[in-house]
């Protein structure tokens, strides 16, 4: 495993695919990184030379990934919540933000949205009360 910028990347994967394990890099960005560094498409991560790994890490340092990207996303959500706009309210209420249906489904939004804004309910009664409020909405 290659430890790069706080992430363990699998050695045996192709370089473009291994880079997707970094938060903020997808298939497209991974391939464009390989193009900029002159790495051939079928190269595996364990075949890279030290010079190539160094240049790779230098290039990744210039990109907004991992913690910095997460911080920016969190700041944007906080900004919307503080603004009091519709999307901010939906984040606060842990409901879908982009107009999805809530009559059913919406389980992902209820699990992931607004985790930074809701206080944790440690008592069972508190969890049940929160569940009932969610159903009513």
């Amino acid at each position, binding site marked *: 495993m290659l430890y790069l910028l706080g992430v363990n990347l699998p050695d045996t994967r192709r370089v473009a695919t291994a880079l997707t394990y970094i938060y903020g890099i997808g298939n497209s960005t991974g*391939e464009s990184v*390989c193009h*900029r560094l*002159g790495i*051939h*498409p*079928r190269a595996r991560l364990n075949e890279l030379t030290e010079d190539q790994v160094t240049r790779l890490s230098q290039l990744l340092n210039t990109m907004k990934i991992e913690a910095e990207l997460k911080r920016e996303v969190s700041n944007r959500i906080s900004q919307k919540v503080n603004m009091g706009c519709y999307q901010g309210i939906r984040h606060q209420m842990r409901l879908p933000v982009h107009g999805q249906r809530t009559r059913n489904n919406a389980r992902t939004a209820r699990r992931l949205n607004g985790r930074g804004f809701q206080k944790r309910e440690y008592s069972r009664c508190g969890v049940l009360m929160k569940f009932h409020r969610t159903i009513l909405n």
Partner: protein
Amino acid sequence: MLARIAGQRGIQRGVRSKLLGLACASAAPRIPKHHDAPSRAMATTAVVTKARNAPVLKVQPWTRDTASPDNVRKIVALPSDFLECFPVEELPLTLQKTFAFFATPSLMLRKSTLRLAAEISKAFSGDKSGPTQFVVDGVKGIGKSAALLQVVMHHHALKHVVIYIPRASVVINGTEPFVPRDEILYDQPALAASILDSIYGLNQHLLEEIKLSDAASGYANLGELVRDAATDPSKAHRNFDILMRELLDPQTAGLRPPVLIAVDQVNALYSVSEYHDVGSKPIEGHRFSIARTLLDLFKTPNGLPNAAIVGATDPTVHTAQPANLSRLQRVATEEMPELPLVVSHADVTPTTALEKQEWIGEKAVVFELPPLSTDEVSTLMEWYMRGKLMYRVELHRRLVERQRVMTGGTGQALFNSCLASRVADPRTIEFISTSVPEPSEHSVLLVGDLSVATEDERAEMLHVLKGGDMDAEQDRGTAAQVFLDEIPELERMQCG
């Protein structure tokens, strides 16, 4: 045991193929994943030889006297010294599949291959007006790679310098590291080193006898130059350029043995590669220095001195966008703006690019291989029976004609058909010993007598040489008619 059960009479075709597959799976070792390894199907077939206990057949190896009319339609084995330089795993994939089923890699010598070898030998005769650039073309599975391989073995046996690239698609398929040489060209040091290593292995003694004309290079002979570059990729491209310059120098043409450069999958060199530049734009194949060197040889206007270059096309190589497509689009925009710019892949096949002669010189010759004749199909089927590829089949005229018609005379389709045991249908077996018709007199080829097209005919046919008989089409029509006349109407309807 499963293979033995599959060979028993009365087993249905679908069940037989499944039993064979189970036999292969049970005998297959665990194959580590590697991006250079052949596909799972190829790896499985490579084990089939052991699983099915392929008989070791006595086959004469290729020698300098093999290429003669006496040996037409004979099965000839690849020589062991050639296989040391080019193991079966490095040969074209279409040939690997066939070789995997036999203990000894062998090919049938065709009349068209003899003709091709004779045409190439004319280039070494000193006639400067003759062609020195050849392209072997034909439909998929007709035997282009096999013909090229046999030509390579022929010239290797004659002690000529042979540069053989079995898979030119490695230049563009994205498996080799690449570095930019300048704004236009890109180098592939590791690939160049591996090519030089194969050149050294095949021509070691010949290269060590050729002295370098340029003393500044620091090497005593070409063998030393190639050996050094094969071990040090940083010198590979420089030494490769020196090697090509020395071998194709017109001033020293008479002082060295003839040179044959054979490239399989040559159409890959002028297609778009899997590589991208810094701006994420795909790089065209001809921008790689190895491909550029080879394509320049095809376009040399005055031919090659005491040398020849042969390329075989491969329609299975993915040509996403040929190098001339952007030029075609620009021309379409400027001259006929009302035409749509979208060009389908069917419009830019390798044959189309050959007809446009975008990448071959005016004197280059396109050699089209003919389909298999009845005699050749019979020889191959007999060989497959000896190699236990087909089970309990009586070889007779009707069966051979049917196979020839159903496969279109292509060797690959015939092999697949026999492999799938489509021939071994008990309902079609006839125990009537009918002899296969003897070859007619006009099919005998004299190597020295070449029925080459005249200059006018060549210009008319875009430098196309037909490698087979004039009445090959008539033979196929006759065979089809014989087949249709003999089968009952109901069975004909079922065959479609």
